[in-house]
């Protein structure tokens, strides 16, 4: 029976020849992930289950990234709990301090996730790794605690929605714009419980960073996972970071999809999601005059080196608008170092930006750049829900790093063409 790439990975990990959408299966997990917000509850679950040891101390990753450097006593306690647990169970991949960055940036960067694997993480943006041709999906802490104990999880096989992108991208249009456009088209529950597969000639030309951005936001359309079939670009990325062999799986030509949506990208402008939904998407030229208090460039969506290069290309030799705060956070220490070597960080500092240590930063409104009542920000992150970055009466707009950087200079939402 023909299968999609998602179905093939699931069948392989369930130890069966074939699966169909709707099947309830138990699968073996190649890597289980939690962070400083979700790990404490997962550890509590693990202890309640009563298993003495984790299923495999090399297949668990714990990352301190949400509220670090620890923002208060309670957050410090959460990280401490995670650190002690990692020590007790000799968890090999525990990352904190100078070794840590944003979980979904450092796992691919350190070669910890590979094509064909099945990854479960207690973070909704775990779907990011689908860019490598991996099945990866977010769960809550109880599920993750059970995975740490058993190495397995039950899943319902999702139907796949295949998005095919054809044509040529306009200048200043990135993977971020394609995924915002897609979420605008499908709606925030358009891919509910579904696998969201990204394909077509346009995707084949995208660098890994932009593929990660797209898979990252599959959850914003309700998707269970986002996925892109691995190709030469994927394998070159992985070969630089891991000596393990990749399992290259591709969907069968006659695989069944819930639907196939073709998008001609020729006329797609840079997109902006306006408050308070990532599906509230408009071309940047139609957003109107929106003065800004803050701009944030970073996160698991757009904290990649290529994103910083994009921003630097706009910001070099220019100044941040008076009264506006520009916060830039590289996704990992490796990206930070590269950005220093390439002169990117110097350009940011000259422009008047604040550079934060690799972490989730203000994306979820807990730390490092919270908005006051009535304030407005444009951000390269993934969610613009009410109160997401601070006060419930603050506003978040989402865009790619080029638009965010141009907006920082303009003091209002605008495109690089206006500079």
């Amino acid at each position, binding site marked *: 029976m023909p299968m999609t790439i998602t179905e093939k990975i699931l069948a392989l990990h369930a130890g069966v020849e074939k699966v169909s959408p709707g099947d309830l299966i138990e699968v073996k997990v190649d890597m289980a992930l939690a962070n400083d917000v979700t790990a404490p509850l997962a550890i509590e679950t693990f202890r309640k*289950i009563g298993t003495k040891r984790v299923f495999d101390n090399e297949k668990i990753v714990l990352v301190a990234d949400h509220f670090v450097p620890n923002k208060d006593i309670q957050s410090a306690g959460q990280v401490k709990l995670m650190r002690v647990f990692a020590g007790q169970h000799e968890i090999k991949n525990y990352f904190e301090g100078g070794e840590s960055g944003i979980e979904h940036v450092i796992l691919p960067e350190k070669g910890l996730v590979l094509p064909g694997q099945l990854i479960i993480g207690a*973070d909704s943006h775990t779907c990011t790794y689908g860019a490598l041709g991996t099945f990866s999906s977010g769960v*809550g802490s109880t599920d993750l605690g059970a995975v740490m104990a058993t190495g397995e999880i039950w899943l319902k096989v999702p139907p796949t929605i295949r998005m095919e992108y054809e044509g040529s991208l306009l200048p200043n249009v990135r993977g971020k714009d394609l995924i915002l456009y897609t979420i605008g088209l499908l709606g925030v529950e358009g891919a509910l419980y579904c696998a969201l597969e990204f394909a077509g000639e346009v995707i084949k030309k995208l660098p890994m960073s932009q593929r990660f951005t797209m898979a990252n936001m599959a959850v914003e359309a309700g998707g269970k996972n986002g996925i892109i079939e691995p190709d030469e670009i994927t394998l070159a990325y992985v070969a630089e970071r891991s000596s393990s062999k990749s399992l290259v799986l591709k969907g069968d030509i006659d695989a069944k999809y819930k639907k196939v949506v073709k998008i001609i990208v020729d006329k797609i402008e840079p997109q902006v999601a306006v408050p308070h*939904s990532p599906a509230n998407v408009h071309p940047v030229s139609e957003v109107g005059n929106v003065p800004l208090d803050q701009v944030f460039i970073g996160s698991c969506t757009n904290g990649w080196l290529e994103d910083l290069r994009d921003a630097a290309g706009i910001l070099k030799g220019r100044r941040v608008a008076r009264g506006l705060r520009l916060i830039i956070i590289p996704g990992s220490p490796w990206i930070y170092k590269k950005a220093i070597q390439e002169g990117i960080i110097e350009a940011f500092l000259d422009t008047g930006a604040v550079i934060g240590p690799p972490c989730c930063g203000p994306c*979820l409104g807990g730390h490092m750049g919270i908005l006051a009542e009535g304030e407005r920000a444009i951000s390269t992150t993934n969610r613009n829900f*009410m109160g997401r970055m601070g006060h419930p009466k603050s506003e978040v707009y989402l865009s790619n790093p080029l638009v965010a950087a141009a907006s920082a200079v303009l003091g209002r939402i605008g495109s690089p063409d206006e500079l």
Partner: protein
Amino acid sequence: MKVQGKVWKFGDNIDTDLIIPARYLNISDGSELANYCFADIRPDFAKGVSSGDILVAGRNFGCGSSREHAPLAIKEAGISVIIAKSFARIFYRNAFNIGLPLLESEEAAKDISEGEQVIVDLASGECKSIDIGKTFSAHPIPDFMRKLIKAGGLVNYIRKGERKA
């Protein structure tokens, strides 16, 4: 199993940031989290909710972050069941995993209003509004989820050996 309570009504796309804002995610204790449940959109909720009360919402309830603090805060606040038109995927798993039952019903979610007294039969999915005297049928809870609820959540389900640990 039947539950009865007063209805708290919410709209579509209630995300987990609205259920429990990120500034409270430095808390892991359920009963403490309950104090901040819906803090930004329904500041009266945490103090006004009574044990057994029922939450009724629109489409895609619980979308966004995977934070289990969201269903935990709702459950610890005293909510016995959530009826919605649809649920976001991760929230759906999380709720059943911690023993908070969810029912899907377009009609019930549309017609039941704030403050009504409702009786819900979790086994059959029947929701009866005492105030308007109308009965709605929700999709029955899938077998596997029912086992989770019966066990009191995923931890007990695994401990009881229904699934190997």
